């Protein structure tokens, strides 16, 4: 924000900057309403799924993947179920549905976290996973490309999947490299 104000003064865009203050809060409120209501609704649906045992069966399907990404995490833990729901919503491209699942997953992971102020290794893996796109079909972008008359709006899909998978791999690799780095630096297990 400091950078923005300084730049605004230098470039003479300071009027736009103060305008952005208002339009920014407005779009924040808009986002809050849509995602907030989504979270409210999905929180309800998720609770039904949890009570009826549907989410348990569902997370069984993703067990192999969760075992690889979150070693030693109990597969029957509520955290694994929420992580499974989050991953599948992301893969299907339902970002609005993925966030509430992800937030519940974080809460469950916090329950089993030893130090409540410091992110656990599971949390780091999970958040990094959510900062990489694992969407299978790029629907939003394909719709935009269609609008501008692309010969084949979906022909980027293959490249998108490869790029996404490679960046996921790179993110996870760097995440583990950093983990071993911090471990050796402190000379003890964290």
């Amino acid at each position, binding site marked *: 924000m400091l950078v923005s104000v300084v730049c605004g003064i230098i470039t003479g865009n300071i009027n736009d900057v103060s305008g952005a203050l208002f339009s*920014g809060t407005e779009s924040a409120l808009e986002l809050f309403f849509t995602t907030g209501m989504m979270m409210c609704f999905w929180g309800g649906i998720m609770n039904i799924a949890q009570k009826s045992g549907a989410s348990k069966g569902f997370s069984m399907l993703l067990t192999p993947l969760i075992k690889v990404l979150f070693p030693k995490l109990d597969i029957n833990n509520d955290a694994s179920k929420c992580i499974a729901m989050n991953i599948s919503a992301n893969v299907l491209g339902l970002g609005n549905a993925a966030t509430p699942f992800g*937030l519940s997953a974080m809460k469950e992971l916090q329950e089993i976290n030893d130090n409540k102020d410091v992110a656990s290794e599971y949390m780091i893996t999970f958040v990094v996973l959510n900062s990489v796109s694992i969407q299978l079909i790029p629907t939003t972008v394909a719709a935009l490309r269609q609008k501008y008359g692309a010969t084949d709006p979906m022909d980027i899909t293959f490249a998108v999947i490869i790029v996404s998978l490679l960046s996921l791999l790179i*993110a996870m690799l760097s995440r583990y490299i950093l983990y071993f780095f911090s471990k050796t630096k402190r000379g003890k297990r964290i």
Partner: protein
Amino acid sequence: MTAYILPLSIAMIVAFGFVKKIDVFNSFTFGAKEGINTAFSIFPTIVGLIVAIEMFKASGALDIFCSILSPISNFLSLPKEVLPIFLIKPFSGSGATALLNNVLENYGVDSFIGRTAAIMCSSGETTFYAVSIYYSAVNIKNIKYTLFAGLIANFASGILSGIFSQYF
């Protein structure tokens, strides 16, 4: 196809609840209440982040950063027109989509620039947004190397989009 996924999965979950004979509506309201509490807990984060991005864009700081980075993008054979998307994507998905809209309009949808921008836009994620809302929901203060790893992913997806849009 995707239009069917959400309604069908909701219907299946509710139906399964009835089959298992649990109190479906009470379960719903209880979960919904927790959901809205979570939404309130991340609201301050959303406001701060979005206002900061809007100010950043309006001040012209984005353009300045892009011109600083353009030698690097030349080196990586990444068109400089996609740099704003590269910079905004980690912060805001809708912001990146708006920029993609501009790029497609000005440089053509099937051009190298247009394709690179489209691939970049769909293979990257909003790292800062994910990191801030997920950690603020559980009051974690020390996030260790999460942000760094996430940004490496963004960086990688940006560079790789340029490479792969040439071959596919």
